[in-house]
């Protein structure tokens, strides 16, 4: 383990852990995120992550499940502890990170409780997250499709095919513009190769079988007929590729809306494949795993060749999601911000988005959303996201009027402290200063430089800095979703 302690004391690196509890396999990576002042000499400082490096990857671990399909919390915790021991890492060495429960595991009844518990166990600012869109985005970042698209300007569709789900992310010039999730993966059928029988059929597989009488012989306990299983895999491969073209054949299998590119408005330059099934493309032995994985990989390869579609297997395909979680969940806020460190870290604050350009309606918008989302603001703080503000609008009068409006909302709503405000545009230190003049002795946290487009919740970590100047600190921020799938019926 090459954790450079000197660099840590210099304070220009964060140790980040990524943990992915998937349908079939779980992974853990430890990464080092180096940051530096990316601003011009003498200009107001701005910290940015300048290098992302993987310093440890766990082996591919089988996700421990109980007989009833719940996540075995104790064994999963042991996996994490053992990985930390192997690399000689203490929980206290971990600055940040993300634990994501993906695919079918996110459907386990206890997913929510387990993920919160495991995140806590993994480190003090390791955040838990879940959700089909988030999975898709993390996989595309971890597969390097996003980086590659950024560098080359190519449009890439990344498909991460795991045990339970296939996650799609459409990347244009380095920006993920759309994500989708299909409930199809390599664990839909499980086999007992010793007895040569089918040992388990997932609900999603059952759905396909029910709509195709041809597959009616696929029953738990029946002998594995390689031919029929291959045809079943072919049907799934076709479905995966049709979904890539935004064509939905099994609406019940879509866990999100379909991609919107059905007319092919966006020309896709490359298709990238990641996930466990992608990593099985070179596997010859059908009996290698006790599930459909290799069948599905073979069927996909054949189908892609038949359709004359070029594709790439992502480097480290099976670990794409966890690498995404370890390397790409953290954003650094702008460096001119306002906060008091004793309030941090803050976890799981709901994001309430407010169009700040129509100031007179700010209060109305906030109240409406609090009601809609049944949020008790007197007891639990939220993060107000100020949207719609452009740089050229940032006059002193604009900020002062906005601050006055916000101050009044905080007071009349008897809002729970700290008051957290988030924006993308550069305004945090100014807004914080003005608000402090209006709300004496209230705890206020303002951060900028943060894109919250894809999230519902925010976690804010303790400040990081490259200098002793308290005015040049940044806050590590995670914008995330916490969508655990509803347990089935």
């Amino acid at each position, binding site marked *: 383990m090459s954790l450079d302690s000197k660099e840590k004391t210099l304070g220009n690196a964060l140790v980040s852990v990524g943990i992915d509890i998937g349908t079939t396999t779980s992974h853990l990576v430890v990464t080092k995120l180096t940051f530096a002042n990316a601003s*011009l*000499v*003498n*200009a*107001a400082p701005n910290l940015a992550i300048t290098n992302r490096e993987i310093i440890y990857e766990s082996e591919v671990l089988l996700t421990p499940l109980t007989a009833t399909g719940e996540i075995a919390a104790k064994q999963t915790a042991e996996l994490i502890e053992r990985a930390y021991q192997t690399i000689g890492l203490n929980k206290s060495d971990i600055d940040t990170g993300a634990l994501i429960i993906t695919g079918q595991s996110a459907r386990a009844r206890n997913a929510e409780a387990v993920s919160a518990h495991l995140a806590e166990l993994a480190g003090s600012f390791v955040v838990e997250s879940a959700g089909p869109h988030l999975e898709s985005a993390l996989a595309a970042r971890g597969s390097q499709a996003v980086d590659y698209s950024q560098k*080359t*300007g190519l449009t890439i569709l990344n498909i991460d095919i795991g045990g339970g789900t296939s996650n799609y992310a459409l990347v244009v*010039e380095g920006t993920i513009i759309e994500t989708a999730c299909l409930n199809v993966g390599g664990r839909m059928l499980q086999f007992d190769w010793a007895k040569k029988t089918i040992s388990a059929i997932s609900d999603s597989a059952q759905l396909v079988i029910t709509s195709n009488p041809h597959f009616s012989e696929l029953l738990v306990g029946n002998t594995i007929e390689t031919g029929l299983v291959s045809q079943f895999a072919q049907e799934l491969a076709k479905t995966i590729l049709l979904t890539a073209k935004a064509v939905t054949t099994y609406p019940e299998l879509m866990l999100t809306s379909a991609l919107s590119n059905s007319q092919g408005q966006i020309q896709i330059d490359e298709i990238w494949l990641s996930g466990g099934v992608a990593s099985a493309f070179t596997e010859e032995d059908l009996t290698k795993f006790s599930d459909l994985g290799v069948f599905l990989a073979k069927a996909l390869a054949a189908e892609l060749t038949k359709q004359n579609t070029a594709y790439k297997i992502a480097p480290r395909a099976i670990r794409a999601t966890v690498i995404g979680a370890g390397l790409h969940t953290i954003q650094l806020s702008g460096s*001119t911000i306002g906060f008091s460190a004793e309030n941090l870290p803050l976890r799981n604050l709901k994001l309430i988005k407010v169009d700040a350009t129509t100031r007179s309606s700010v209060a109305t918008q906030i109240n409406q959303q609090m009601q809609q989302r049944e949020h008790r603001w007197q007891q639990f703080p939220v993060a107000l996201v100020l949207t719609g503000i452009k*740089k*050229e609008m*940032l*006059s*002193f009068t604009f*900020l002062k009027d906005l601050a006055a409006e916000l101050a009044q909302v905080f007071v009349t709503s008897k809002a729970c402290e700290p008051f957290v405000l988030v924006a993308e545009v*550069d*305004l*945090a*230190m*100014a807004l*914080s*200063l*003005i608000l*402090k*003049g209006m709300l004496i002795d209230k705890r206020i946290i303002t951060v900028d430089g943060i894109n919250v487009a894809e999230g519902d919740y925010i976690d804010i970590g303790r400040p990081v800095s490259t*200098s*002793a*100047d*308290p*005015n040049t600190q940044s806050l590590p921020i995670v914008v995330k979703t916490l969508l655990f799938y509803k347990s089935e019926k």
Partner: protein
Amino acid sequence: MQARTEQLKTLTPARIGVSRTGSRPLTATWLSFRADHALARDAVNSEISQSFLEQFAKARQFPIITTMAESRHDFILYPPKGKRTKESTIRELQTTCPSDIDVQIVVSDGLSALAVEENLLDLLPMIEYGFALSNITVGQIVIAKYARVAIADQIGHSLRAKVALNLIGERPGLSCASGLSAYITYNPGPHTVSSDRTVVSNIHKGGTPPTEAGAFIVKTIERILDKKVSGVRLQQLG
């Protein structure tokens, strides 16, 4: 790839991917270069407009002074004249302005009067608001024409200010003619050299917005007053 070039071009105001015809730039490129160059030259040669001074300085009775330079032209030709003002001007300021203050603010045209006009109405209220909140005393704000950075040190010294703050127009470039800088000196005086000054530069709508820069300047001056140093020695504190 065309789309990629277009996207890259949006990331910088620099003249990249402008194509050419033979060995010469395209006419459109050449014209926009000439226009930007003209803007930069105008900024250097222009004075703070009367209307701006009427609206901004007269209302609050800010004294408007000149340096040793007698005109804009004189200032451009003989830059050292912009560093100091006459003794008579100093004596006048000493009789009309409060002294023994925390911060003396000087607004200088420097090499871009445009920068002052475009940024000050958002920058100055933010700074004053922040100082008031932190009980930092400011004397009378002085407007200096034909002025360079060091003028604030002379004025600050004569009024016994702990800190001199010069808000001054930056030398214009071909992509921006309205950038402002803040030069901050702790214990300003004849002994002050460049390394004694802390700078916050690139203040304009396309760089650090004036409101945010104002808040940052307040925080930076709070720290300077606390540590009793500025410039390189402040940086050396880490």
